[in-house]
């Protein structure tokens, strides 16, 4: 299994900065919204790197080699645990 070092501190996607890495903790909102992210490969436990944003549009993530654009509504809805810089994503 991958070794990851992550902080216990929970943040929202919007609180991360560009280049940050993290792990999805939870998706707030309706179960349908969670399912929309699930089919794109994003679920609690998924590691990601924030490639662009957060900005007025939202963010672009890299998860397992796939670039996924999320609109700004997700910035508050997705809770994440930031990975420390020494961790292996």
């Amino acid at each position, binding site marked *: 299994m991958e070794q990851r070092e992550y902080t216990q501190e929970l943040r929202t996607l919007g609180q991360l900065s560009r280049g940050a890495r993290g792990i999805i903790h939870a998706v707030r909102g309706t179960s349908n919204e969670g399912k*929309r992210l699930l*089919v794109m*490969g994003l*679920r609690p436990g998924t590691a990601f790197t924030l490639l*662009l944003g957060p900005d007025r549009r939202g963010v672009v993530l890299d998860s*397992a*080699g796939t*670039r*996924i*654009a999320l609109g700004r509504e997700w910035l508050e809805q997705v809770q994440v645990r930031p990975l420390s810089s020494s961790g292996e994503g």
Partner: protein
Amino acid sequence: MARHCQASAGTRRAEGLPRIALVGNPNCGKTTIYNLLTGTHQTVGNWPGVTVERRSGSARLGDEKIEVIDLPGIYSLLGGGGEDQAVARHFLRDEEVELIVQVLDASTLERQLLLTAELVELQRPLLLILNMVDEAEDRGQRVDPQALSLQLGVPVVPMVARKGKGLRELRMALRSALRSPSLPQRPAWPADLEAALHDFAAQIDGARGRFLAWQYLELPENTPQALLAARAAAAQHLQADSAEDLADLLPAARFTWAAQLAAQVIASGGKAGWRQHLTRHLDRWILHDWLGVPIFLAVLYLVFVVSFSGGNVFLDFFDQASAALLMHGFGHLLLLSGAPDWIVSSLAGGIGGGLNLVISFIPPIGLTFLFLAFLEDSGYMARAAYVMDRLMRRVGLPGNALVPMVIGFGCNVPAIMGARIIDDPRGRVLTVLMQPFMSCSARLTIYMAFAVVFFRGNGGQVVFLLYLTGIVMALFTAWLLGKTALRGEARPFVMELPPYRLPSLRSVVLQAWQRLRIFILRVGKVIAAIGFILFLLPGIGWTSQGLRATDIDHSLLAQGSEALVPVFAPMGIERDNWPAVAGLVAGAAAKEVVIGTLNGIYQRQAGGDLMAQYRQVDLLQELRDALATIPENAGKLFSSLGDPLGLGDLANRDASIAASGASSETLGSLAQSFTPLTALAYLLFVLLYVPCASTMGALRREVGWGWMLFSVGYGIGMAWAVATLVYQWGTYAAHPQATWLWTAGIAVALGILLLALRRQGRHQQNQLRFQEQG
């Protein structure tokens, strides 16, 4: 080890062709493989680029012929996505097929395997195509196809479909898999999950029991009443040792399996290559917070100006060569065969002339299609959707509503169907209702005929302005309805951004050709039908002795059109310009017909010896002259590219007519019947008024009779209002009082519409509340 199916020869279709279905995540290269396998042997029933319905074609595997089905891209068999993904889901679960072929993007294998995990549970013969292995290598990943094949028990074919690499191996693998199909090996799920699935599946009838067991466990809302107790027992068993919700537990099993399998078959090493760097650098600019939207608008502008200017190089050649062959040459042949004059003029002049006008516009339309196909294959369209999301959201739409809108530039029908990619029903209805305002290729033929006459110096800019007006009206419509009759919020945006790719020439040309083919076939049919009507209506009219043969100015066509002229008078159509009204009425069936109608009428009105052009024909000289226009027009190409958005010719009728160099009677008659201002008002009406019959059919199918009738009425109203406002304010100095009166009338009508829509919105919300309480 692979398990082999028993019935390989016995499962053939009634038509005698074995059938394979291509399935995969969006952007995995599925359609490229479909094009490689089927070439031009495709049933055109769908708009390429965005597959929202299944389509089929035939392919040859040596001496054997097979049917290939291309399904819309899908992320999961269990649910999610729009109507397009539901089409793929239903096909895979319910339809008979000899072989399912999953296309996987090797560069994002772990995520692509999530769909494999579900397909494996269907227990149908499966073959995997590991596409884009070059991109995986660019990411520093080497995927071992043999290891993957061994783990899953199905054949795996590595490919770089964009370059045609691996096609021979694919054909061989397909032949072999069809002769001895292999059922995939089920993953080794955790013991309690396996037991629960096994027990639950035993209580479900049919071959897909195991898959359905999985589906009902994960999505309880779909469980049939009779299976609720069995589901509850399985759920209880699964959750006995876990605090995790089933909606999390089951996907977790798939994610873990995919991650472990990917780790086993991918050898990672090396650094990211040029493609990754390029994508990262390009995205910084293309997705830039401030520059993203201007870049998108600049791309659209370039597409249309370059298409128009580039198309102009060949336009005269297509025009003159088709006139030589279809009108003069064909008419001459008919005369030689002894056909009477009326047959010659109706066939060569009516139908041949109509076709000639449509064929003239093939170069710019074909170029537009080429550019659109290039943009779709390059990975830019998904970025454009993200870039525009914020703006689209302001009118209550998600960013991916942009994809159907861009398709709408080609044809509104597939654009309306393309709205199925939007998973929110409200957003889908709004997107569908926007499409009739997107300027389709049929309308382009009318713009170009008018641009050639009135705006030749800056036709590209005027056409771009018309396209922009269509976009603005579409967005206004969505905003208006979103605030009144269809209140609500757009769902948050989520979309995969594929890496940038240099599209293959073959794929781009094939896609553009398919679109052009639809355009030509559709127009051909319409022209043939309308050609006959146009021959009949201008030749008879009501006289004091009843219905009698008359000249065209006293014909039924003229009488009917003249009766309608007063309705169009506020937008500058004068009584003697009744052919313009006839064109609009005929154009309700199909916009291509507008120019064909004008063509037929003007030819007859011109009078004189219409038969002279068929008697003396020097076909070779005409074709030589046509060919000579290509280098001549190419010389003018670059001067028009640098021209800014200049609309100077709008005010100067004489200058524009002089610049037009109108070559046919129709274009010449247009110059006599319109001023640049009335031409602009007319074009705006053409842009906005009732969509063609096919579009109306698509509207009814996708959103029902009510919204279809609304769309038609609203479109006519808006077209009339905009055209009237443009004409009235353009001639304000001549009649200021009338201008204010018409403006006030339009404002009042808009206010009444707003109130009615708000009332409808409240009514619908009350109904929803009532249903929820009930």
